[in-house]
């Protein structure tokens, strides 16, 4: 069928803020869909609250609504835009759930909007556990024994049949939120209660445990003519019991024979037909009993998913793009395969390499929480690596994580007693792969490790091969030859090209490379520098070669240059003679470095391509738009390490390399790359270093007469104490060179300071700890600016709502400033110009200031793309990252026509989203260490309404009436009076504990009394559990030894009750509620806001 002509306008819903289980893979899929459908001539209306997405760039849709993704808001968009169709399958679970809500409530019928891709019954059948199970049995497939429970009582009855361990899966929750494995009745009751609360329809699936079974996934596509193809098969290294998002996974399947694989394929095809997904992609998970081969169906996602993004990157088959085209009527055989150009997309990709995906976690930010990996996803990002063997791909994957590992390293587990290893193998944890190595080094057998971990012996054997090879590297004779050869290289380069030493070195290094060892690993083994290994390798002619990801295992010629490195006999890269610029990406997502940086990299690629450069992207994150083969002229899917980047550099010889856009990842490589002769363009690595090095930066500020909070640096606890005492507590402490405020803390006394210096960081003369006076109750301001070396233009000034001291990534902020006066703004601008000049910025720069009365302090300067660049770009309608890339390539702001600062006549509010519901028991208190995973944007001509929209987009719908619980620290008692008064005026009832209630009463306000925790009942906990409170204002005392405060916040989060923990935050909320009471929310596309700028 050719494309449909009966529909013209299509609504696409994005996935909102980045959260655990739903990250930038949905920007990748949504962006592909927007591009594909626009290409076909459809008008696209887009709703997504996340400004850091490429899809919300105004060029990708005709009407871009940066609005909350809730049914009522999307209904407003539908009423205004009247789309013909809604494509619900590309924006993750968020888009799917909202689409279902709109369909079920009759909104789609009311406005005549057709669901395309998947119809309502198909979505319901796939998502509803009971319907799904019934459907599977209907078509003769097996599912784990299971039952549905809607109450605790039903759940208790069920578990009697199913037995322990039992799996609890709440219906319609994202990434399995609220699910888990219960091994005993006590755990079970707890999980059931939590799961019922979290499931929007209070429904649980209680399932027979297939823990320890092998886990597989198939990515399936179907078109309107009922053609079905499997795009990719995936095998999980971690057995059933660990969420696939938290598992190390491998593509393709490694341990099934063709007979077994085809059976699974047949099942997958039957499933997609039975469920009735009309067109598009689905992900189907299976478990296989390793002893008998019994296959059971676990679940199906009737939409593109994280796995489909991975599958697309793993095979070169763009699932989301094709899904979009199928949704508008094309059949698979009518769409060409982009990679080969001459063959159709109706085929099954075959790959001739091994793909390994490894998750990246952020438990260090959520101390106190249980780090066991379960059926609920907890990782915040992932890296993918491609190699010709599992060993190579795994080791590349481990170093792609940028956790300080360069492969299957000697993790510091040497001291671990052997007796502790079994539990580390049997309880899934983030370092299990290293515990396996520890077990292997101590001689534990593959069978024994398998018995503990259930990891298939095939993978364990491959790990053993790595360990054995590493031992062989240290075998005395081999070691002697290699060390001698390395010595010769250093002392007398070029003299030792032959001889026994060189022969041994050549053989061994070659094999090491095929096993995926990095230069850095070898350097550590032989106790030389990485550079020496590199030199030795090059001297022996051992150079990385590049192979193509081509969907067809070389059967056809590939048109699309998508490469990975390996050591082999043939290099397929044929560099062109065009002028090239290489962009280094940001690697796996982590808290503090995520989609915002990928956004900047993508912009650089687009802008430089437009300027006629050949663009080369290097990145290891499969979720991103930057690793779409469409984004750059050439894509290298590689770890971001000096070795890998240099390999590519030497091959391609670009005239410039951009390190400013990928966050801290490429910056950490900048100096080493520059030393190796790589032309870094934009602000020089030395100038970047000047801004990062505390002493040098002080000099810069002194030169231009700017102030910092009083500060000092220390390399030891002893050195730190007098400095802190002189500054006066509280102080902010942090290590140098980090992103996302890693290990940054406010320290209130000397004891805490010692604790911090001795346990939290490893300070050294190269990496001292920075100690700043904490400016209490200052207003924090972020400024993003762009400079070409001569002229600097401010992109945006963002005023934080919360006071200084909370990481800027965790703060709500407003652009333009809403309380600053013109003089202050003028000063901030001048300071920023001066800083840009002093640091010789060519490209982007972000400055954080603290304003206390009339004093302005510089907190931090980052001469690189910041997390706020996409937000600012969307707020002012200027693509700052594109401009910056073109400046780095030699253009001036004048040439680019950006010389005027823009102050919009509307307000943009950015609000963070936190993953606390995934990490029960962890500290929910906000501070200088960033904890949010993503952000949303609210835009309105009224600042309070913009704030309300941002809150709504975060999932907190501000109440228009009801009860407010107020509990504030003594210092805030005065400030709360005004807020409480306004709330009562607006019709709210107050709830307070004794102390606060008394203060309120003295100011003429009645409140309902609750007991402080431990002093009687009811407490606020009871109110929260009963949903008898609608809003909470609770400012923490800063005393870490008051766990009750934490518990209030944790419970509020779990029960989705809006909570504000700062006075400014509460004030903003009150204003927002006031605005909402005065009139309904309206929706306006970005394109219309931008018209207001002209």
């Amino acid at each position, binding site marked *: 069928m050719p494309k449909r002509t009966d529909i013209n306008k299509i609504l696409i819903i994005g996935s909102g803020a980045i959260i655990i289980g739903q990250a930038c893979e949905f920007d990748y899929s949504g962006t592909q869909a927007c591009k594909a459908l626009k290409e076909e001539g459809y008008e696209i209306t887009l709703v997504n609250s996340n400004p850091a997405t490429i899809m919300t760039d105004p060029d990708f849709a005709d009407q871009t609504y940066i609005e909350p993704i809730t049914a009522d808001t999307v209904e407003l968009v539908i009423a205004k835009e009247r789309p013909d169709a809604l494509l619900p399958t590309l924006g993750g679970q968020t888009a799917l759930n909202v689409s279902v809500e709109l369909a079920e409530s009759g909104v789609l019928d009311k406005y005549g909007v057709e669901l395309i891709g998947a119809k309502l019954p198909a979505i319901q059948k796939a998502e509803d556990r009971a319907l799904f199970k019934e459907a599977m049995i209907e078509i003769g497939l097996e599912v784990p024994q299971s039952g549905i429970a809607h109450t605790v009582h039903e759940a208790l009855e069920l578990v009697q049949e199913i037995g322990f361990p039992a799996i609890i899966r709440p219906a319609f929750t994202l990434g399995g939120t609220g699910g888990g494995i219960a091994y005993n009745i006590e755990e079970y009751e707890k999980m059931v209660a939590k799961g019922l609360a979290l499931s929007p329809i209070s429904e649980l699936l209680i399932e027979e445990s297939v823990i320890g079974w092998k886990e597989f996934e198939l990515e399936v596509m179907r078109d309107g003519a009922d053609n079905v193809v499997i795009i990719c098969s995936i095998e999980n290294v971690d057995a059933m019991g660990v969420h696939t998002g938290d598992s190390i996974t491998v593509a393709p399947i490694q341990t099934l*024979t063709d007979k077994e694989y085809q059976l699974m394929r047949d099942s997958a095809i039957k499933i997609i037909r039975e469920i009735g997904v009309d067109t598009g992609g689905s992900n189907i998970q299976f478990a296989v009993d390793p002893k008998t081969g019994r296959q059971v169906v676990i679940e199906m996602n009737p939409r593109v998913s994280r796995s489909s993004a991975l599958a697309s990157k793993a095979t070169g088959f763009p699932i989301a793009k094709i899904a979009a085209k199928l949704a508008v009527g094309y059949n698979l055989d009518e769409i060409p395969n982009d990679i080969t150009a001459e063959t159709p997309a109706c085929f099954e990709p075959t790959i001739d390499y091994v793909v390994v995906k490894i998750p990246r976690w952020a438990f260090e930010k959520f101390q106190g929480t249980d780090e066991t990996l379960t059926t609920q996803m907890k990782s915040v990002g992932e890296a993918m690596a491609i190699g010709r063997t599992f060993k190579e791909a795994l080791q590349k994957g481990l170093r792609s994580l940028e956790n300080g590992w360069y492969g299957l390293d000697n993790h510091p587990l040497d001291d671990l007693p052997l007796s502790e290893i079994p539990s580390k193998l049997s309880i899934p944890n983030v370092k299990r792969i290293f515990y396996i190595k520890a077990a292997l080094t101590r001689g534990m057998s593959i069978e024994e490790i398998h018995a503990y971990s259930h990891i298939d012996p095939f993978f364990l054997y491959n790990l053993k091969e790595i360990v054995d090879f590493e031992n062989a590297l240290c075998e005395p004779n081999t070691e002697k030859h290699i060390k001698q050869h390395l010595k010769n290289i250093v002392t007398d380069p070029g003299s030792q090209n032959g001889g026994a030493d060189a022969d041994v070195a050549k053989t061994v290094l070659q094999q090491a490379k095929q096993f995926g060892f990095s230069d850095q690993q070898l350097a550590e083994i032989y106790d030389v520098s990485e550079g020496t290994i590199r030199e030795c390798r090059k001297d022996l002619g051992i150079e990385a070669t590049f192979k193509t990801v081509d969907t067809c295992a*070389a059967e056809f010629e590939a048109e699309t240059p998508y490469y990975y490195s390996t050591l082999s006999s043939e290099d397929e890269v044929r560099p062109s003679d065009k002028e090239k610029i290489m962009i280094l990406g940001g690697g796996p997502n982590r808290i503090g470095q995520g989609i915002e940086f990928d956004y900047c990299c993508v912009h650089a690629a687009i802008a430089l391509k437009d300027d006629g450069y050949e663009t080369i992207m290097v990145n290891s994150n499969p979720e991103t738009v930057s690793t779409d083969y469409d984004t750059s002229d050439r894509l290298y899917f590689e770890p971001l390490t000096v070795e890998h980047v240099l390999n590519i550099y030497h091959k391609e010889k670009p005239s410039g390399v951009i390190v400013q856009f990928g966050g801290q990842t490429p910056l950490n490589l900048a100096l080493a790359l520059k030393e190796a002769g790589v032309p870094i363009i934009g602000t020089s690595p030395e100038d970047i270093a000047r801004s990062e090095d505390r002493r040098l930066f002080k000099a810069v500020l002194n030169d231009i007469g700017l102030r910092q909070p009083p500060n000092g640096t220390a390399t030891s606890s002893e050195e730190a104490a007098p400095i802190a005492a002189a500054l006066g507590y509280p102080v902010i402490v942090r290590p140098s060179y980090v992103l996302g405020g890693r290990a940054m803390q406010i320290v209130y006394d000397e004891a805490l300071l010692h604790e911090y210096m001795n346990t939290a960081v490893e300070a050294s003369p190269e990496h001292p700890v920075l100690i700043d006076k904490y400016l209490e109750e200052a207003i924090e301001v972020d400024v993003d600016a762009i400079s070409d070396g001569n002229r600097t233009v401010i992109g945006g000034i963002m005023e934080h709502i919360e006071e200084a001291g909370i990481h800027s990534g965790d703060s709500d902020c407003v652009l333009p400033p809403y309380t600053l006066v013109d003089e202050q703004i003028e000063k901030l601008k001048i300071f920023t110009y001066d800083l840009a000049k002093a640091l010789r910025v060519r490209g982007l720069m972000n400055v954080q200031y603290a304003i206390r009365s009339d004093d302005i302090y510089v907190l931090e300067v980052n001469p690189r793309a910041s997390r706020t660049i996409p937000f600012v770009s969307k707020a002012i309608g200027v693509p700052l990252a594109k401009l910056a890339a073109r400046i780095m390539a030699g253009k001036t702001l004048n040439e680019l026509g950006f010389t005027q600062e823009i102050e919009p006549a509307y307000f943009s509010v950015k609000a963070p989203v936190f993953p606390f519901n995934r990490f029960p028991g962890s500290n929910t208190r906000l501070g200088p260490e960033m904890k949010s995973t993503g952000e949303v944007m609210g835009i309105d001509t009224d600042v309070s309404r913009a704030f309300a929209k941002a809150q709504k987009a975060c999932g907190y719908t501000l109440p228009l009436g009801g009860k407010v619980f107020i509990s504030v620290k003594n210092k805030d008692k005065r400030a709360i009076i005004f807020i409480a008064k306004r709330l009562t005026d607006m019709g709210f009832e107050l709830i307070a504990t004794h102390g606060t209630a008394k203060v309120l009463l003295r100011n003429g306000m009645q409140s309902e009394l609750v007991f402080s925790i431990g002093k009687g009942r009811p407490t606020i906990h009871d109110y929260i559990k009963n949903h008898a409170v609608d809003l909470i204002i609770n400012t923490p005392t800063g005393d870490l030894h008051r766990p009750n405060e934490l518990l209030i916040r944790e419970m509020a989060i779990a029960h989705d009750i809006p909570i504000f923990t700062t006075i400014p935050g509460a004030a903003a909320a009150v204003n927002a509620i006031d605005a909402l009471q005065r009139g309904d929310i309206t929706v306006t596309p970005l394109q219309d806001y931008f018209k207001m700028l002209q």
Partner: protein
Amino acid sequence: MKAILALTDGTVFEGEQFGATGEAIGEVVFNTSMTGYQEVLTDPSYKGQIVTMTYPLIGNYGCNEADVESIGPQVEGFVVREYSAYHSNWRSKWSLDTYLSEHGIIGIQGIDTRALTRRLRVHGVMNGCLSTDDLNPESLVAKAKAWHGLVGWDLVQRVTCPNPYAWRNGTVSHQQKGVVPLESDVNDYRLRDESRKPKAESYKVIALDFGIKYNILRQLTEHGCEVQVVPAQTTAEEILAAEPDGVFLSNGPGDPMPVGYAIETIQGLIGKKPLFGICLGHQLLGLALGGKTYKLKFGHRGANQPVKHLENNRVEITSQNHGFCVDIDSLPNSVDITHINLNDDTLEGIQHREYPLFSVQYHPEASPGPHDASYLFSHFTEMMDEC
């Protein structure tokens, strides 16, 4: 032990031996299936060929008794990127190394199979010599060059059964020298598929064995056929005398042109009995109908080839293994084209307008590969019903 693979164009790949030792000569071809190496190894159509798998890790799930397509490996040599010494699967009986060495097949691992594949794609398949005895590259290249190659060589004679036999479903022990079907079907994974349960009525089918794959026989049996397998040189008269309901023309190795006796037999059957041909059987049928065949540059070998069924415009993902092809333009008007390859528009299937006969170039019996085209076996029984 070191092993060397040398091609006629002088390319030499040095690697490590696994399986048997010795020397093998054959046409070097690549297969892009990611699973199913045991089925590939045992497919008689690979007689005369040294096969390289494009998927780099081979041996992972070992070898077993059930996943065989003939009495044992048929390839001349086997080339992989990394042989997995560890085999992990609940059905695995032997390592691939053991399996190959017991059957005298030389394997080479550790070579850049993608570079080899690209060479074959760009320059076309070529002959090669794989050796662990002679490690002199020049000598090996010379041997490869001296070899006669597949064109014009009747390889069917090397793989057809010596005597007729009745097929019964079941597995075949790989140690047996003859075809000895076992009583029980250990392929229990297939029994769950309702559509594959044997039909009640029975058809008497004679299968001309040009190198037949067991899975064709299993499929025919499951579709209610009682199959008598006969040697390739059986004449039309002998077949007609047995009064079958239909005749099956099997797959097989090499060039169809020199297999004149079979073409003659088929010509004697056209219009007289329903015919169903697969792969070489399809090519021989094409020749018997007056068409021509030609050699493809590097053939189709894999499990992901998209084929369009022109009758309903549905696309089947098919398993393929052929180096020769029937020329679409050479067929008489009485023949309809039923299937076409979407990758390169080559002929994949034909049907006669008057006579009850049809054939496909690909492998509806899969093994290895997808089951999308298994409906063709029903098509055959329906055709027999009508006659």
